[in-house]
């Protein structure tokens, strides 16, 4: 087996190589290495610009001096070793991408079992114990091993240095270490599943988790604990990189919003995750040493566990949405060819969400025995956290106004995000309303609320981002038609799955229920039907993206004609990203809708023979 010349500099290599390694064919590996010839030249970028004085608006964002021939980062060694020991942020991003995709499908299989089980009120597919293990592992994997690392560790890792014009993150070795920690934590969690599973729910409330559960709580907690340190390492890295490694001229208010959101996310990671770590350590000690910090029989207070857990986990839900907002803020201006409406407010709102997000955790405890005063406080703060989100939604919408909008796949995902996030967020506000939450807490209404935000919002944003930057990552274009088809399938499947759950929740169906009263069956069947469509929708990209690695069109450096430093280097980028340090002279999103129309029109004009007056 050999790699044809034309596919050398592609992701295809990664996959074949891993396959080869697993087969243990060291000889083939050597063969691959001997095949490494001079990689093909990637097309030249714009020639270096003469001097600052002569910049024209569209081109003055960057001065990039590009060498004649470039080695893409994918060509920097083809061995398994060259991937597993690479400190290149781009390669680490790919490693993350492969692992989280794996975890997503494991979590998805658990979701499939959940949904199949719930087709009938009395079940029958699996045992009660299995069902409890399924939703627990579904929650744990989807949250800690998929969604939290999804955008930051994959796209953030790949793009942050590119977007700020740096050669790498500040601490590349720590970056690699954090991937290993992630995998290590993942192994523990997988071991927990294989060793019999965990049945505590992802929230692991004490004293059930600390005293009563007879499942692999220790292994799962260890897995989450270790992964927590991976998250912290990533967070520290991002913060330091953003502060110290920006290209000359790239002031804070010239940063793309994706960088803002990644920075805010990193802050949350650094400030919230340690509290989860210590909480898990205490749970650990309760199980192993029999101490009783959360155990009422030993004078402990189980609500302390909940406070500590949600102090982490509520901010963590913003880890799971902010980067998605960053992606949407990149995609919408690009495909609407218009400057983002009120960039500064959106940037500040990002920090508003990250900051206020730390003040609302008690809204998960309205009926848990929290004091009335605390509930009042947390409720009003939860209402206030909606304001910065509202600002963002309205600003994205306003960005479309007077744009010149095209509907490639990334844009479809971004538009889907706006709608679904709004619904998810507004139902979050209903949950933040004290009296209403009393009846809705721990029902399917909550399930629907967070799936709308996490799946409808963040997973959509992640997929949008993957499509948007796919050309940059892989050097290939994805097939547009398939992309659109998958986006549509996912949207329809999603709504069908989770909209009925709002009704179920309002009717009173509690969550984590293996059995349920028969009157809830119709809606559950609807939801399962939706989930099967959703499952197909998620499998599609897996196939056509893989396909595109081999057969996709070669991507130019800037296929979307987008602004931003990452588009100023080759696709895929060379190992050190830029051959010369870019110099930034302008803010982001300098798109001109009219210009975009003019480009278009001038080509059509000859055929259509329409007067050149811009429309009404």
């Amino acid at each position: 087996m050999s790699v044809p010349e034309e596919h050398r500099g592609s992701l295809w290599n990664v996959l074949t190589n891993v396959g080869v390694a697993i087969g243990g064919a060291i000889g083939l590996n050597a063969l691959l290495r001997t095949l490494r010839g001079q990689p093909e030249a990637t097309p030249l970028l714009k020639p270096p610009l003469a001097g600052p004085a002569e910049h024209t608006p569209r081109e003055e964002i960057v001065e990039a001096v590009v060498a004649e021939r470039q080695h893409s980062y994918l060509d920097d060694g083809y061995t398994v070793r060259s991937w597993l020991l690479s400190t290149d942020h781009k390669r680490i991003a790919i490693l993350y991408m492969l692992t989280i995709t794996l975890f997503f499908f494991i979590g998805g299989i658990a979701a499939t079992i959940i949904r199949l089980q719930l087709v009938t009120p009395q079940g029958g597919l699996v045992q009660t114990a299995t069902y409890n293990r399924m939703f627990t592992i579904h929650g744990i994997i989807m949250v800690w091993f998929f969604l939290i690392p999804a955008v930051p560790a994959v796209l953030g890792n790949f793009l942050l240095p590119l977007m700020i014009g740096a050669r790498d993150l500040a601490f590349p070795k720590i970056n690699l270490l954090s991937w290993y920690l992630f995998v290590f934590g993942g192994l523990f969690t997988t071991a927990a599943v294989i060793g019999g599973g965990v049945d505590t729910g992802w929230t692991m409330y004490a004293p059930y988790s600390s005293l009563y559960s007879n499942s692999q709580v220790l292994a799962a907690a260890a897995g989450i604990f270790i992964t927590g340190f991976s998250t912290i390492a990533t967070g520290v890295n991002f913060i330091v990189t953003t502060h110290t490694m920006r290209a000359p001229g790239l002031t804070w208010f010239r940063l793309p919003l994706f960088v803002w959101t990644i920075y805010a996310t990193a802050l949350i990671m650094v400030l919230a995750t340690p509290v989860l770590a210590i909480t898990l350590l205490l749970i650990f000690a309760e199980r192993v040493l029999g101490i009783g910090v959360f155990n009422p029989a030993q004078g402990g207070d189980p609500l302390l566990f909940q406070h500590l857990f949600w102090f982490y986990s509520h901010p963590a839900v913003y880890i799971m949405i902010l980067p998605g907002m960053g992606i949407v803020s990149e995609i919408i201006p690009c495909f609407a060819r218009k400057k983002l409406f009120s960039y500064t407010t959106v940037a500040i709102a990002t920090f508003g969400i990250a900051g206020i997000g730390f003040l609302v955790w008690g809204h998960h405890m309205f009926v848990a025995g929290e004091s009335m005063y605390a509930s009042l406080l947390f409720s009003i703060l939860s209402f206030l956290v909606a304001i910065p989100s509202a600002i963002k939604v309205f600003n994205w919408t306003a960005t479309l106004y007077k744009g010149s909008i095209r509907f490639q796949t990334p844009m479809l995902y971004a538009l889907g995000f706006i709608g679904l996030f709004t619904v998810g967020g507004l139902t979050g506000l209903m949950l933040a309303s004290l009296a209403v939450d009393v009846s809705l807490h721990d029902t399917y209404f909550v399930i629907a609320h967070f799936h709308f935000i996490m799946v409808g919002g963040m997973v959509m944003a992640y997929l949008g981002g993957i499509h948007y930057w796919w050309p940059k990552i892989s050097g290939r274009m994805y097939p547009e038609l398939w992309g659109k088809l998958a986006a549509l399938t996912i949207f329809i499947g999603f709504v069908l799955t989770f909209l009925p759950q709002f009704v179920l929740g309002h009717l009173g169906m509690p969550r984590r229920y293996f059995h349920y009263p028969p009157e809830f069956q119709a809606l559950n069947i609807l939801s399962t039907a939706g989930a099967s469509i959703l499952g197909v929708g998620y499998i599609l990209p897996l196939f056509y993206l893989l396909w595109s690695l081999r057969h996709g069109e070669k991507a130019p450096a800037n296929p979307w004609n987008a602004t931003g430093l990452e588009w100023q280097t080759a696709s895929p980028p060379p190992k050190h990203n830029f051959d010369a340090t870019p110099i930034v002279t302008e803010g982001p999103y300098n798109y001109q809708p009219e210009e975009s129309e003019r480009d278009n029109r001038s080509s059509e004009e000859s055929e259509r023979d329409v007067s050149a007056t811009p429309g009404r």
Partner: protein
Amino acid sequence: MTRKLKTEAPSRVTSFPLTRRAGGLGSLALLLACTKAKAQEQGFPLGPPQASSISTRVDAIFYTELTLALIIAFSVCFLVVFFCFKYRHGSRANRSNPPSRNAKLEVAWIGIPVLLALIFFAWAARTYFDMYNPPPGAIDIYVTAKQWMWKLQHPEGQREIDALHIPVGRPVRLIMTSQDVIHSFFVPAFRIKQDVLPGRETTTWFEATQAGKYHLFCAQYCGLNHSRMTGWIYAMEPADYERWLSQTQGEPTLAAQGERLYEQLGCSGCHGASNTVRAPTLEGLYGKPVPLSNGQVVIADDRYLHDSILLPKLQVVAGYKPVMPSFKGAISDDQVMELVAYIKSLGNNAGRADPRLPQNAVGAGAETTYQQQSVKARIK
């Protein structure tokens, strides 16, 4: 930076539809209610029955919020789709001076949500308070949760498992505790829910308004058979309820059982009238302020009595030695409840609180608020 980020000349953007459509809110809510009723008729209900006094108030908030959420979501979606259509690439729409700021608009779309948020916060908070603050004269039902069953006991002594019979039109207060992990008492038709904690008492209350049979769920995940920890609430017309009470083999009342225990466990040995150990009398204790040795003054409520029996060292009455033994582990949660019921039955006889209060802290006795008293007690 050679150019300003801002584009001047703010142009008019379509006005935010929320304000214009406020009038539509009512009609939409009505539509929603009709759909719901219709669906209910067809055996496909979209909402749970409204069977308690609070349920209509909760639903009022819920449906108003839902309506508003729909309006907002539809407006956003409408605008997105509308802009997408109008400004699609290649359309002939006017794109001159695309705005990238508009101060007035931004203030509006920050200000209006803030206002709405505050209104709904206040409304829901008010209702929440009433959901937990029981009116006087409620029937006290003692609830013990354990994996995976509900044990309920009436003040008249009837015990039930996974079922509760209550009269319509009378407030019922639930005094709950758990023997193992956290559970949650959830009756969708009444819109009430409260976690049931081990080692602590929590309460909630409701007043059924419609006779019928309603689901009782355990809403907090509590292990293997969490989804089987369900039961039924039977709301009955008062006459039926009386009949049920008399037909059901009433065990001795909680208080009576408590009295027996009180003797058996030797409580009366210390707390009785003629005793060697100096211990406070418990007559009329319930509901009265109690000054503690650490300077605080607390009200002797259910929780206080509960704690005084299980953890006497926690709150020692001022002027007494902490000699009372802890009964934690020695007696079951049920028995604690019986003791508490007995102590409560000792009545609010007058003449009890005052002699025991340190003179300078007494002041107005029960009339003084908690805060005032604790301040006074501290000044001492």
